[in-house]
């Protein structure tokens, strides 16, 4: 045990000193800062826009559309006068456009012009089978010409205003009827936008830890082997102690980095995110982070990392040259990637309580990527968590036992890479 702690402590201190660790920590802190500052940045630009809009409201003289430089040209064809005032409404909504009224006979000419000039568009109004007006937009491509959403809304409003006016409805009532209503969403179930985002974030973070720190473990072991430090190390400590100590050291390093980032995230959130901030009409809430769920999240994070890090350590021990490390890690990374996608797709499909996700909860390689999302988005039955944890812990124990055997056989073998079967069969020193 003492040796494990010594190896762990040395690995941790060594990792802290590395430039890659310092750089990655600073980058992640900056990302966290930018993420938390994003609402303020967005609202700053929104504020600037609304300020200019307001300015135009209070001083109509300065917003004379005739003074605006005309960069676009819209041909408006409505021979049946199905939307009275449509051309004028478009001209008002798009002050940068020159709206020209035309006839059906000219459409082919318009199309020829549109083909060669992306700033030209045509708006053709015809009557559909239900006798309602049908709006057809002709643009050079889907990315050029008139903003069809805005134009469709302007013409629809104009059409409705005309109908209501002809029915004798007061113009103030028409204005109220045209107004867009603001909305917020509230969910009676467990799943909310915060839990959804945090769940996906935790899945991604776990994969990041498995990949980044797992790679760190493999690289550290491979470096020790290729630099022949291993020769000195294995006479000083048991291979099992080295393996476990190294994985724990890197795990501690990852945990310390994440803890630092999370703490700074909380600080940045409180300092920078405006009060009452909403996302897609929903306010952010961290209610899903109860002490129990936080503890389970940490546990799955650590166990997930542990499972993959011992396998990565074996990959590091199996190579004689650092250049071979990536190919040696390929099988482990494939398992990690597949398991991550199971968790990720189950999450983005919104199927938090689906049978697929429940099954993935019980697969030890997948559960560290699946459970964080479920824990933050639904009430996971206790028996599922217990079975999942037992299976995961059992798999870690089995994988560690096999890994120690392979690791012990591999660390002093140079030259041709040892085959798995030979590693398991090979008798080495007391591990």
């Amino acid at each position, binding site marked *: 045990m003492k040796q494990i702690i*010594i190896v762990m402590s040395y690995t941790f201190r060594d990792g802290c000193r590395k430039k890659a660790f310092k750089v990655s920590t600073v980058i992640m802190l900056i990302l966290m800062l930018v993420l938390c500052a994003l609402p303020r940045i967005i609202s700053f630009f929104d504020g600037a826009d609304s300020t200019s809009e307001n300015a135009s409201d209070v001083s109509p003289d300065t917003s004379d559309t005739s003074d605006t430089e005309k960069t676009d040209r819209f041909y408006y064809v409505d021979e049946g006068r199905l939307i009275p005032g449509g051309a004028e409404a478009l001209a008002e909504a798009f002050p940068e456009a020159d709206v020209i009224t035309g006839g059906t006979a000219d459409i082919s000419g318009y199309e020829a012009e549109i083909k060669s000039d992306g700033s030209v568009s045509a708006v053709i109004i015809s009557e559909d089978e239900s006798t309602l007006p049908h709006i057809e937009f002709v643009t050079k491509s889907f990315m050029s010409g008139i903003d069809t959403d805005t134009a469709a809304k302007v013409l629809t409003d104009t059409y409705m205003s005309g109908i209501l006016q002809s029915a004798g409805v007061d113009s103030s009532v028409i204005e109220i009827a045209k107004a867009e209503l603001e909305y917020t969403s509230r969910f009676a179930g467990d799943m909310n936008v915060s839990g959804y985002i945090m769940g996906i974030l935790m899945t991604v973070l776990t994969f990041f830890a498995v990949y980044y720190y797992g790679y760190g473990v493999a690289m550290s072991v491979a470096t020790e082997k290729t630099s*022949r*430090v291993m020769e*000195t190390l294995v006479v000083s400590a048991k291979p099992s102690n080295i393996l476990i100590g190294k994985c724990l050291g890197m795990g501690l390093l990852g945990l310390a980095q994440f803890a630092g980032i999370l703490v700074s995230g909380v600080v940045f959130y409180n300092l920078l995110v405006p009060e009452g901030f909403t996302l897609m009409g929903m306010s952010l809430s961290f209610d899903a982070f109860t002490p129990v769920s936080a503890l389970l999240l940490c546990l799955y994070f650590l166990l997930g990392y542990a499972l993959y890090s011992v396998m990565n350590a074996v990959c590091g021990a199996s190579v004689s040259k650092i250049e071979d490390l990536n190919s040696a890690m390929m099988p482990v990374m494939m398992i990690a990637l597949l398991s991550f996608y199971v968790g990720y797709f189950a999450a983005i499909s919104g199927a938090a309580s689906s049978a697929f996700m429940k099954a993935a909860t019980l697969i030890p390689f997948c559960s560290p990527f699946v459970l964080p999302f479920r824990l933050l988005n639904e009430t996971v039955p206790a028996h599922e968590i217990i079975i999942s944890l037992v299976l995961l812990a059992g798999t870690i124990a089995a994988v560690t036992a096999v890994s120690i055997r392979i690791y012990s056989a591999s660390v002093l073998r140079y030259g041709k890479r040892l085959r798995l079967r030979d590693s398991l069969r090979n008798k*080495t020193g*007391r591990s």
Partner: protein
Amino acid sequence: MKLEVKELTKTFGSKLAVDRISFSMNEPGVFGLIGTNGAGKTTTIRMILGIMSSDSGSAEWDGVRIQRGTLSFGYMPEERGLYMKNKVIDQLVYFGMLRGMTNVKAMLSAVELMERLGISEYANMNAEKLSKGNQQKVQLAATLIHDPKLIFLDEPFSGLDPVNAEVLRDLINSLVEDGKYIVLSSHQMSTVEEYCRDILILHNGSTVLKGSLDEIKRGFGATNLVIRTRREDTDRFASVIDGGEDRPELIEKRAYEYEYRIKGEEDAFRVLRKMTENGIYPVKFEIKEPSLREIFVKSVEDHGAGAERA
């Protein structure tokens, strides 16, 4: 105390790497494990240390089977390995602590060893900034940091310049004076000859020769004759000696010195008589035992021939 190695055997697949090796050390001193590259020296050491299990046989210290945790031993591997990006003092303390020392004790021991090896000034430098010779001294310090009773040095002199080799010689001498048991693996015969009382010669995993170096040499007899002449007599000496039918076999010709293989003292006196009859008087005339290098080469050749016959 006593180191006893009994019938250690190891095979890798179909290759017999070490074949029933046995030897013992009954008192402090240096034991020489000699062999060509791939003879099985490192595998033997690894089996003794318990970092590689043997197919059969055992290694015991004072009658107790050697295990990593139960015996304080030091091992300097042939391939030097240090954490290149880490400070020298940090890694020495780390290795000391892995061997059961406290942080303070490991630090004190590291400082003392670095002083003894003349590398104190590099304590806070990364290992990569040190010369190869100094890296080797750091490696040696890592081997000795926990004051082991039994020390294995695998090719300790390779890559050392004469000055650093002298420092290492002094250290090995002082370790022997302190009562340490040292197993020295090398293919540098002069080094082994200088230190070892007992040797074991390995070839292709098999024991070719073993025992007390003095006895082995005595067993080979006084077979070498070294003659140095005056500078002006050098050419004439060669023609006189080479002239007769009973000329001795020349082993090596140095600047003013010749070394011959002789069958016995009679051969030597016949050469001397021939020289004096021709008015050539030697500056040096020495009948001596064969060097370890010759014994080694001859033993390996004989063993190879024996194996081929078998």
